[in-house]
């Protein structure tokens, strides 16, 4: 199994955080790097999207989004019944797991590129579509029966949030301009992508290390959930990929999307929409356990399973 080197930057950040190094990446740089990554991922997807007829993607997209709804629903049932978490906490965590992590997606894409495994370019469209429905569903689950919700506020937070604006914006720019039109920007957005991803992962290592204290509050059930849930969701992703006929690379990417948990859009949206949920639990699980798990073990695992599944057909 070949190793994706950008992950080593994540490990470095993690170690620096654990030994309490004075290494600190300023918040503004975090913001700047995430803006770059979201825009670049959108652009790449848009360029690829230009070579597919849009109508051919609509059907698969619907299947992908509907199947993905099972993830927050199952997560909520497991957390509130078996885990005995309070309704707001279970709903908020379910929303985090139902939504997706853009950086996990980016790492999976570069892992696959390194393996020489091609994937359908329009998966970025699925990335965008999977980002927000789970957040809305999470709020519905939290509010069922009681309490008022500022829906306008929440929908604005989610749909006008920077991840959606930049991903969709990049997608449209890439789609309109096409590969030739984007050429003058290639150096910045395509060539530098991996370097920026490495930088961002270094920062994420530091952030994850700073969340370790939250994990103690999470308890063994949530820790187990944070590993079992992505694997189960990954399997659902592989199954859905077969249903819509994705390539091996596409299946591995879709499994990674299903398995990943959001930590950019979800925490901010849930903090506003479900204030009584404890963010230490959802962020501890999604960022403290699931994100590193997917980076180090999950992505190669989903790819390996996708290869096996394809071999059996």
């Amino acid at each position, binding site marked *: 199994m070949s190793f994706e080197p950008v992950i080593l930057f994540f490990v470095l950040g993690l170690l620096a955080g654990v030994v309490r190094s004075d290494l*600190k*990446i300023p*918040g503004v740089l*975090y*913001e700047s790097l995430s803006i770059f990554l979201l825009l670049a991922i959108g652009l790449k997807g848009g360029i690829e999207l230009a070579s597919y007829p849009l109508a051919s993607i609509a059907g698969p997209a619907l299947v992908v989004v509907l199947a993905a709804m099972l993830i927050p629903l199952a997560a909520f049932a497991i957390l509130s019944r078996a885990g005995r978490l309070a309704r707001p906490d279970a709903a908020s965590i379910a929303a985090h797991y139902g939504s997706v992590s853009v950086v996990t997606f980016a790492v999976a894409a570069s892992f696959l590129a390194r393996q020489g495994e091609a994937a359908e370019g329009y998966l970025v469209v699925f990335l965008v579509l999977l980002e927000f429905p789970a957040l809305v569903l999470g709020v519905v689950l939290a509010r069922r029966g009681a309490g008022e919700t500022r829906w306008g*506020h929440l929908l604005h937070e989610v749909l006008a949030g920077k991840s959606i604006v930049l991903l969709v914006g990049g997608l449209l720019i890439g789609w309109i301009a096409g590969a030739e039109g984007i050429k003058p920007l290639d150096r910045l957005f395509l060539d530098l992508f991996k370097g920026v991803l490495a930088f961002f992962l270094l*920062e994420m290592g*530091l*952030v994850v290390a*700073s969340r370790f*204290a*939250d994990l103690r509050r999470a308890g063994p059930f949530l820790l187990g959930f944070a590993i079992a849930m992505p694997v189960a969701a990954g399997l659902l992703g592989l199954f859905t990929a077969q249903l819509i006929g994705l390539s091996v690379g596409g299946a591995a990417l879709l499994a990674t999307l299903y398995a990943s948990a959001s*930590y*950019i859009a979800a*925490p*901010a949206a849930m*903090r*506003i929409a479900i*204030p*009584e949920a404890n*963010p*230490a639990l959802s*962020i501890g699980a999604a960022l403290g356990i699931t994100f590193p798990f997917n980076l180090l073990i999950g992505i190669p695992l989903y790819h390996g399973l996708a290869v096996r599944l394809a071999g059996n057909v």
Partner: protein
Amino acid sequence: MTPRKLLTIICEADLERSLADDLSALGARGFTITDARGQGAHGARDGLWPSAANIRIEVLCDDHLASAIAESLQARYYEPYAMVIFIADVLVLRPGKF
């Protein structure tokens, strides 16, 4: 120099937009927001990434408005969110502005 109140709110950065709306609705004529870091009942708020960032909002106003803002925000945000509010006496040069 005229006496006024300086109301300071330190809270989670996620609340910025919501608080800005509340302050305007309550009648504040202006406020200043700065990024902040620190530590307290909600653990280390180190500003490493958006969910761990704090802000400090300062409002200059008369004592009625300062009390009204403090009470309204306390009722709405103190329970679920990380928030501290305090009020200090200050002197201002242009009382008509605040």
